């Protein structure tokens, strides 16, 4: 008997322990939910400004119309449906169907402008309500279907989360911290005024000041769109950098999208080709290769080599772009005429370890770390894992993948006196300067090497493939390099190319460094002569147009001679 009583008591106690100890948290929360009301106070999202404090994004209020069908009498349905369709332009039959349904709540239309809300309010339609929401509004771009700098800024979705670009990368700083009001309610759901209240104000998001220049951004987007259309290309991108700081001045993609209408945009357009895609840079890489060889003391700009137009490496015969025997040429000529054999010989002269170290010094073996979301990069294999032929092709920019930010930052080393300026888009977060700007810049190559390479790149513009980029008045003050590389598909190179041009001016005191990449151009007549798709025909004219805008807008003058 005693045992039975003990067992029963044990069962009761264990059940009590289960509810009071194990389930305590859940039950306490359920109880709190019945008498406690928690209202979230949203934080105001920070604004984004360009380098001249021109506002690029504005928070605006939009409205969503909803209906509670159970509160609309059958006799009022037609009036309600007519009112909603006349103001919002929605299908009246669909609204009637919604009103006849048993649902308690349904959105009629989401996120429309205040003007429509002002028209709807006086109608006093029964069962219809308006819900206020905050929306990010971006500046108009070059066409009605695009907004300015959409790819670098990204957008904010309907949940208030930043997607892509700066909006995603700086979500925490921009979004701020929401506040709340917590109070007690009685059985009739009335607030108990004298009860315990907890109130915390929201902390609004911080404003961002970018290194972007809205005017240059617009000029870049316009010139790029015109160029891509003219070249019958698949797409194109432009990236402009301040050589001294690494701040991005313009970041343009074509095609782009309308960030104000992201929910009706093909998601494929959200992917940014500048930082989200990699490409083989082609001959632009020769700037890196030859700089490394000069630093290593393996060559000088005047070193003469024999270029028969072909070189056998690792069992492969690798040709110059024109397959011609160029005879004895110096390295200034090699760069000006973009000779692959010369680049390979320079790499061989300095040796594989030094070449690889040079890639590291120019930041091509790791992500650029730019403060824009979703950076994509394909890092080269370890130095001892690369074959001879891989080293050979990498010396002239094939078989090595980089993103545009990495490549521009690497070339900018030459423009910046041999120092690597970390690329970035945001200069200030609230009142704080981006820490990247306060760190000393890493010396990648010596200032002397940078000066020699600058002189060689000037020769590219004056006597080589950079001639179509010449700007009147700056002919002696431009430095540049073209690049054209075939696009591999399933391990095989195709006739489609990435055509690019990188350059800076004035050569001795650069004010900007710019990289233009055009993907799969089909220049008129290129079906007969594929070299018409080359960087000098496709990317360079775009570079020139944008550079002219920069010269005018920034009042850039040539260096004295």
């Amino acid at each position: 008997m005693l045992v039975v009583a003990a067992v029963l008591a044990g069962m009761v106690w264990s059940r009590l322990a289960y509810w009071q100890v194990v389930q305590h948290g859940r039950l306490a929360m359920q109880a709190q939910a019945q008498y406690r009301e928690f209202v979230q106070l949203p934080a105001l999202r920070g604004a984004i400004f360009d380098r001249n404090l021109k506002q690029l994004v504005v928070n605006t209020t939009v409205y969503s119309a909803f209906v509670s069908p159970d509160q609309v009498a059958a006799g009022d349905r037609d009036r309600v449906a007519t009112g909603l369709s006349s103001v919002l332009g929605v299908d009246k039959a669909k609204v009637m169907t919604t009103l006849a349904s048993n649902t308690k709540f349904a959105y009629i239309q989401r996120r429309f402008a205040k003007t429509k809300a002002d028209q709807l309010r006086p109608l006093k339609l029964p069962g219809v309500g308006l819900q206020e929401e905050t929306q990010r509004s971006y500046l108009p771009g070059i066409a009605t279907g695009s907004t300015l700098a959409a790819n670098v800024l990204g957008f904010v979705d309907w949940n208030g989360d930043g997607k892509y670009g700066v909006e995603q990368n700086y979500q925490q700083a921009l979004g701020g911290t929401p506040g709340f009001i917590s109070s007690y309610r009685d059985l009739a759901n009335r607030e108990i005024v004298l009860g315990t209240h907890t109130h915390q104000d929201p902390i609004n998001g911080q404003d961002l000041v970018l290194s972007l220049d809205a005017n240059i951004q617009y000029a870049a987007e316009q010139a790029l769109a015109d160029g891509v259309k003219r070249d019958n290309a698949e797409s194109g991108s432009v990236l402009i950098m301040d050589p001294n700081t690494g701040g991005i001045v313009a970041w343009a993609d074509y095609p782009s999208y309308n960030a104000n209408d992201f929910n009706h945009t093909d998601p494929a357009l959200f992917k940014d080709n500048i930082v989200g895609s990699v490409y083989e840079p082609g001959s632009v890489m020769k700037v890196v290769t030859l700089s490394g060889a000069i630093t290593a003391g393996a060559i000088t700009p005047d070193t003469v080599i024999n270029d028969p137009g072909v070189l056998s490496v690792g069992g492969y015969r690798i040709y110059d772009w024109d397959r011609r025997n160029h005879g004895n040429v110096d390295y200034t000529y090699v760069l000006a005429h973009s000779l692959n054999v010369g680049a390979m010989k320079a790499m061989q002269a300095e040796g594989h370890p030094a070449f690889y170290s040079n890639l590291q010094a120019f930041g091509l073996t790791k992500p650029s770390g730019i403060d824009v979301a979703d950076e994509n990069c394909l890092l080269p294999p370890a130095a001892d894992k690369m074959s001879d032929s891989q080293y050979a092709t990498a010396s002239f920019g094939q078989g090595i993948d980089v993103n545009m930010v990495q490549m521009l930052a690497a070339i900018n080393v030459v423009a910046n006196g041999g120092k690597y300026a970390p690329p970035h888009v945001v200069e200030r977060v609230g009142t704080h300067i981006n820490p990247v700007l306060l760190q000393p810049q890493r010396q990648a190559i010596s200032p002397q090497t940078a000066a020699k390479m600058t002189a060689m790149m000037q020769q590219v513009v004056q006597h080589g493939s950079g001639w179509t980029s010449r700007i009147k008045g700056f002919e002696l003050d431009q430095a540049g390099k073209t690049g054209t590389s075939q696009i591999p598909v399933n391990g095989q190179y195709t006739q489609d190319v990435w055509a690019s041009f990188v350059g800076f001016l004035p050569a001795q005191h650069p004010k900007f460094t710019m990289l233009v990449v055009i993907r799969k151009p089909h220049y008129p007549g290129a079906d007969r002569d594929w070299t018409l798709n080359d960087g000098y025909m496709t990317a360079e004219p775009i570079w020139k147009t944008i550079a002219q805008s920069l010269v005018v807008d920034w009042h850039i003058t040539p260096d004295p001679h």
Partner: protein
Amino acid sequence: MARRRLGTAGATPHVTAQPRRRRRTRGFVQVAGAVAAERLRLNMFGHAYVGVGAVVIALLFYLALAAQITQASYDMSRLQDQQRQLIAEQDQLRYQEVTMHAPAMVQQQAAQSGMQRVVPSSYVAGSAVAIDLTTPLGASPADATPLWMRAVATVVNAVGGTRDVMAATKH
């Protein structure tokens, strides 16, 4: 009921302290009711009427107060709604203002006005600075005023207390 301590605060202490007496104070309603009943010579029903009247007055007062609070809350709600609408309008105007300064709109306006961007055909070339800013400063120019004039000026300054003789002689 509230109890009140009677009269020692601030008073001069007596030599022989009297024993303190506590008196139960009567409320205002009780006093007023008793006085009114005494003067009006009310019977029991009279008392009841007065009581009910007092309750009705209190109820009316409560209702008036509640109505005022309700009205105030309506006003607050209306003003909050108005404020939200004004903020929304301000946001809209802000966006319009920012859009008007956007490069796309500026170019559109310029094109409508018949303006177009012209690429300069030539630039003013920079020239080397003619002045060497690194040269050290030379000696200051010698004072050419005759000695006798300086002596006179010193005397005049000392006597007259003026210091503009030298300046005056130059004009």
